[in-house]
């Protein structure tokens, strides 16, 4: 199928590993936003890891998506002609200066100017071209010197390749930025690579950049890196200090932290879903005056129909709606089912979500069902239409170890299903309320600690057993969503943002740098 192409668009969305090729909360949100603003044309720039990691599109593209392009960061071309050359030593001295400032955490005009200069000279034949980074003598010397000066890990080979592999996506992003269609503003849905691309585009074109962050990308990367086993530590037993992170691990963490920081610095507005995440963004380098919260919102009329389809009785069904991936901690849900079934032998546990993202994990989950003896009580349903599923569900369960502001809880509330969730992200805020007025709506379910299957199972059991408590929770959920988390509120807030940012460019006209770039291209 050919992708839609256009010469220009109003808003260019920068999407890393999400809509339209991956399904999930963030992708649904993107879909919702695009459909909510038919007055704007959207371009989608999808950035993924490798082509084989993604299947077909999971969403039908809305009509106002006029352009979609797909790029992969780790699509290496092998066997290219290599040629050694001297490279510009002066340029690498500047690069060193920039890295020193990053290391020391200095934020100055000089740093921002250096950054601008570096990201505008990444093209072929320029001082910081990929060719120069990979094959020039100046680059080699800089890497070798840095190794000597900073590396706590003795392996030069690992150091050298870590640096090369870590930086290589930057030139892919540069190519994307070079060829991306002109837009009135850029909207990135995460920091990381997509966010860095946004920062590059902002520096080059001067167009406004909006960042909407659901989870905190840098944090998630960090946790991944802490646990990853592919990063080697070559220090000997007697050189090791256990309280110290492996040097290359630290390098990777720093790299992603800086990618995020550059994106925060370049963004005109930074949107978080709730207060805790906004604070986190500021800790990670977001300028406070640019940040704001816009919570997710639900299409109430649609969900009211779903609610109307419910029967009188409370179905003894606990349902986890989400992809079968480790972050959702499906195993804790399954273990909680053991407790639930011990209390209510007829209870069922459903897992509604695709299993193809982490097949190994899905297999482990199926194995766990068997070893817990829950074959009769647990069903893996695969991807489900939420409108048809929710009327059959008694309690929505969220066992995740990390969440932001999960749409499934809101959708469940609106459809009249209370929830039991782990205490992550804004789940406590959604279930119990934040602040006096919010809390007055009541508790829409129960919150338990992470990785505590027994508490989770017992909480679900007590909701399913106690009709009065269940109905109270249902009403609390409905009231909270109707008053605080409607789609209209979310669209309203984004309409203001889009209008002010797109308006900015219309008023100011394309900046000089932008003109220059476009002339260069046509």
């Amino acid at each position, binding site marked *: 199928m050919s992708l839609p192409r256009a010469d220009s668009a109003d808003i260019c969305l920068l999407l890393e590993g999400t809509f339209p090729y991956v399904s999930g909360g963030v992708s649904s949100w993107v879909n919702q936003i695009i459909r909510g603003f038919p007055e704007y044309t959207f371009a989608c720039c999808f950035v993924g890891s490798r082509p084989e990691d993604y299947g077909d599109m999971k969403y039908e593209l809305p009509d106002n998506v006029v352009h979609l392009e797909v790029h992969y960061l780790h699509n290496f071309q092998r066997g290219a002609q290599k040629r*050694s050359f001297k490279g510009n030593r002066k340029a690498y001295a500047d690069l060193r200066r920039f890295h020193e400032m990053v290391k020391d955490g200095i934020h100055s005009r000089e740093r921002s100017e250096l950054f601008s200069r570096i990201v505008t000279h990444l093209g072929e034949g320029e001082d910081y071209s990929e060719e120069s980074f990979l094959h020039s003598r100046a680059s080699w010397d800089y890497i070798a010197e840095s190794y*000597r000066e900073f590396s*706590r890990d*003795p392996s030069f080979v690992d150091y050298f390749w870590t640096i090369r592999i870590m930086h290589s996506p930057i030139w892919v992003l540069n190519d994307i930025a070079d060829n991306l269609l002109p837009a009135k503003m850029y909207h990135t849905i995460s920091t990381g690579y997509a966010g860095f691309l946004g920062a590059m585009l902002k520096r080059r074109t001067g167009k406004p950049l909006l960042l909407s962050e659901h989870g905190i990308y840098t944090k998630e990367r960090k946790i991944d890196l802490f646990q990853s086993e592919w990063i080697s530590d070559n220090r000997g037993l007697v050189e090791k200090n256990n*309280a*110290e992170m492996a040097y290359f691990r630290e390098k990777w963490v720093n790299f992603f932290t800086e990618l995020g920081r550059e994106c925060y610095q370049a963004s005109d507005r930074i949107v978080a879903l709730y207060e805790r995440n906004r604070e986190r963004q500021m800790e990670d380098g977001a300028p406070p005056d640019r940040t704001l919260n816009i919570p997710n919102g639900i299409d109430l009329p649609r969900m009211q129909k779903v609610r109307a389809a419910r029967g009188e009785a409370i179905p003894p069904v606990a349902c986890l709606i989400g992809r079968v991936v480790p972050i959702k901690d499906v195993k804790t849900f399954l273990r909680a089912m053991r407790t639930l079934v011990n209390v209510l032998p007829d209870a069922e546990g459903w897992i509604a979500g695709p299993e193809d993202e982490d097949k190994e994990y899905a297999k482990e989950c199926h194995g766990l069902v068997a070893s817990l003896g829950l074959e009769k009580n647990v069903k893996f349903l695969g991807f489900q239409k939420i409108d048809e599923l929710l009327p059959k569900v008694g309690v929505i369960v969220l066992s995740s170890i990390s969440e932001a502001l999960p749409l499934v809880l809101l959708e469940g509330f609106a459809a009249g299903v209370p929830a039991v969730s782990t205490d992550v992200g804004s789940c406590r805020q959604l279930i119990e309320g934040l602040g006096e007025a919010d809390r007055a709506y009541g508790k829409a379910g129960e919150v338990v600690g992470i990785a505590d*299957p027994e508490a989770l*199972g017992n909480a679900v059991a007590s909701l399913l057993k106690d009709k009065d408590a269940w109905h109270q929770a249902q009403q609390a959920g409905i009231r909270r969503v109707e008053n605080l988390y409607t789609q209209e509120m979310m669209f309203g807030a984004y309409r203001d943002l889009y209008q002010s940012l797109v308006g900015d460019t219309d008023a100011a006209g394309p900046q000089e740098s932008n003109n220059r770039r476009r002339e260069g291209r046509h």
Partner: protein
Amino acid sequence: MSSLKLLIYAVSAEIASLLLLLSRQADLSLFVLYLFSHGLASALLSVVAWGLLPPRFRTPKILSWVLIFSFAFFIPAVGLVTILGGVALGIWLPALFRDKPFGLVDQPYFTPVQVNNAAGFRQIDLKSLLTTSRAPNALRVQGMLVLKDMPAKVTGNLLRHTLGDSFEDLRLLAYGILDQKEKEITRDIERALHLLERAKESRRYRLARRLAELYWELNYQDLVRGDIRTLTLERAAFYADMGLMEAPEDAGLWLLRGRIQLNQGEIGEAHQSMTFARRLGLSAAKVNPWLAEIALQRRQIPLVRLLMREITDDSQFTQLNKSVEFWRAYEPATGG
């Protein structure tokens, strides 16, 4: 025809032509004969020389051969040397000026680098560091890195406590560490179960024993709680029984079974299993502490003392020494 033969023919033809040239008779027919003989020699020599050329000098085929032939024919003797010299130059000269794919660089060398933040990590114990929210988060994350390398038996409680921490990174790290340890054992269990399905009679005992140990390990390392712990202990007991059916004289397995039962709260049966283990020859140092624990739970204090006294001094259970000493001292006048 081999080039050596060709060479011999060529040299013979050339010698013949030279002899003709040196003869005193000045006759046209003789000169034509000379030309023919020299031409033959040059042609043969050119074939040989052309064959020896590097491939890139051989194209275009005919012209390159004609060039060599001309040298050989028109400049007798010296011509051939010249052309060989030319070829040699042609090979060496470009090689001298060509870009080499590899350049030589200095060997990188390693100088140990110190971390500059020698944070006051050592002055505080890990537990209070991780349980207080007053310590800086970065330091607490560092503390978590240390826990990662420690046995779960020791860290389980602390990690579980950290799961409820207000700082998300710490929570996730604690979760990751627990999950990792649990996954390792579960993976081994899966593998052993798989093997057991298809195992021959003779291997069943070993696999059952291994499974009992692995399920026990999940409990021992404090990785399972609540209903799942109950289930795990049931599994452990099941496979211990299976192993003992095959090998009833395995004293170690009887002890394991006893410990499982003790955890299940079946004190009577645990006592029986441990007594078996002791009878089958397991040392007092290994069994008696557990028997003593049962006796203690039953409030049979003199029995505890008796059991503890049976443990010899040279026991390897260094952690146990203190309690052995205590129970010895409990009976006055016999200390030694």
